[in-house]
């Protein structure tokens, strides 16, 4: 009996900061709930990883509505970190997610560095694959002024303190609302981060001209979606040049082509955010599209194109 040689497809598996992923496509924090909301529509076992909705030490009610408004090819939101709190997350949400064969990266946020440390400790031994420090939520202001990730010193302190509190892979999610994101990323690396998530939302606003009222109750909110993709991409490119640790690129990824741009710019993994709302099939379409691209271009391994941007000679 002659057996047909099984054709080996391209390799999409990567190691991200010590986490083994079957492919580099994750779902971004805050856009996929605790996984259960999408489980009927999406085969969770096909995802590279799930980054869960940011949790805090205590449950948070979130902001007054309206919390969301659509703008040109984007969404402004000010949810306000509504979440069940870490205890309910562990007892009510994690058991469901652990039924699946998919790495879980848990996003955490605190109002002080102590709270970040406390969260990291509380999540020890809960069978999760990594932590994402959300230092860039527009709703939490350190000393009522800046986001954590807008202050280099505060960023260094939080990351190094959490580093000492956990042996889990530590990914830091940065804010694009800064002058020089590359220097903040460097600080995270120095403080012991294992990876960088780029980027959180851009601060923005929208106004109803008839009533002259803001469209969001909080007046400003975070902008996501295709509208921000070129800026997000530029930030991944800038950070990739100065850090060794891997990057998760995100911001308006709607199709495989968008994800490939981030990968070529230097992201080892990507995350789908707003794209989940538009089409829950987006992550799966992106995975399939990346594979098709590799086949078409005879590329055997996704890793070989990470940061492979061909810049014209003489460019900076």
């Amino acid at each position: 009996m002659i057996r047909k040689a099984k054709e080996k497809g391209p390799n999409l598996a990567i190691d991200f900061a010590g986490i083994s992923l079957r492919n580099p496509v994750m779902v971004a924090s805050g856009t996929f709930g605790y996984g259960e909301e999408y489980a009927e529509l999406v085969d969770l076992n096909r995802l590279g990883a799930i980054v869960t909705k940011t949790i805090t030490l205590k449950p948070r009610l979130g902001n007054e509505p309206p919390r969301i408004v659509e703008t040109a090819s984007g969404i402004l939101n000010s949810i306000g970190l509504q979440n069940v709190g870490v205890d309910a997350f562990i007892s009510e949400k994690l058991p469901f997610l652990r039924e699946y064969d998919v790495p879980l990266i848990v996003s955490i946020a605190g109002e002080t560095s102590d709270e970040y440390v406390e969260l990291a400790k509380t999540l020890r031994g809960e069978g999760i694959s990594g932590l994402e420090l959300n230092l860039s939520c527009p709703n939490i202001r350190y000393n009522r002024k800046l986001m954590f990730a807008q202050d280099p010193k505060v960023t260094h302190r939080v990351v190094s303190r959490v580093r000492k509190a956990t042996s889990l892979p530590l990914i830091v999610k940065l804010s694009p609302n800064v002058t020089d994101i590359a220097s903040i990323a460097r600080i995270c690396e120095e403080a012991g981060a294992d990876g960088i998530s780029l980027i959180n939302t851009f601060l923005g606003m929208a106004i109803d001209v008839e009533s002259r009222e803001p469209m969001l109750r909080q007046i400003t909110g975070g902008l996501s979606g295709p509208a921000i993709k070129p800026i997000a991409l530029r930030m991944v490119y800038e950070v990739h040049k100065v850090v060794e640790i891997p990057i998760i690129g995100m911001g308006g990824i709607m199709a495989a082509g968008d994800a490939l741009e981030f990968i070529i710019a230097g992201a080892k993994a990507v995350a789908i955010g707003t794209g989940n709302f538009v089409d829950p099939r987006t992550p799966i379409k992106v995975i399939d599209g990346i594979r098709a691209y590799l086949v078409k271009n005879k590329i055997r391994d996704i890793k070989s194109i990470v940061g492979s941007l061909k810049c014209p000679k003489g460019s900076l």
Partner: protein
Amino acid sequence: MENMVQVDAKILENREIAPERYKMVLSAPQIARQTKPGQFIHVRVSKSFPPLLRRPFSVHRLEGQKIELLYRVVGEGTKILSGKKKGEYLDILGPLGNGYRLPSATSKVSDIILVAGGTGVASLLFLAESISVPDSELSILVLIGAKSREELLSEGDFRRLGCRVEVATENGTKGYKGLVSNLLEKFLPLSGDKSKPLVFACGPTEMLKRIGEISRRHRFPCQVSLEERLACGVGACLGCVVKAKGSTYTYKRVCKDGPVFNAGELIWE
């Protein structure tokens, strides 16, 4: 077990039935066989963007494997939808949300009042079709409100089901002149009623707020179907919340905990 599904549904019909008001019929057997009154589908009106987000529409009627929607052109998304042709396909998610809770066969409810404002008739017709049983003791009174005579919808459909229908127009071109919530008060308290009426309402938020207030004063159970801008539609993004009673208060998701709520559980502001 019920499951929401994402399907490409064929458009069987899409026509203007009144100025800016359209009726769309979709072939979607997987969704049609499990949808209950008050539930909605989340429609991607365009493969390109803007508009970026899906648009939610409550189910107006079910007929075998077909879903009927009734919608008004209010913005860019519904404008694009109104231009869709028979034979095209639409990417839809559904059925979504918690619909109306129907009175059980053993409940003592004998009078049901449906209050619709504008395109609020959309989900209430489906409800009326589900509860109207010929020759039953149950009496269904339907109050329909609109700005003017031209904007009144579905009056004949409710009558054909055997419902008693009264209309209110803000400009007085037909029926009672004024708001449909004021018309409701004219029927209260129901004469000689042994039990409280059960009221279901769907329409603009201001109207629902007034009806919620009337239900509190007259102490009758009332379910309201809310309309909100939605992003995900499946309870993940927490963008569509409304304030509800809790130890202090809590936020409930219109898309997942609703869109139908007991008027008494909401905090109207």
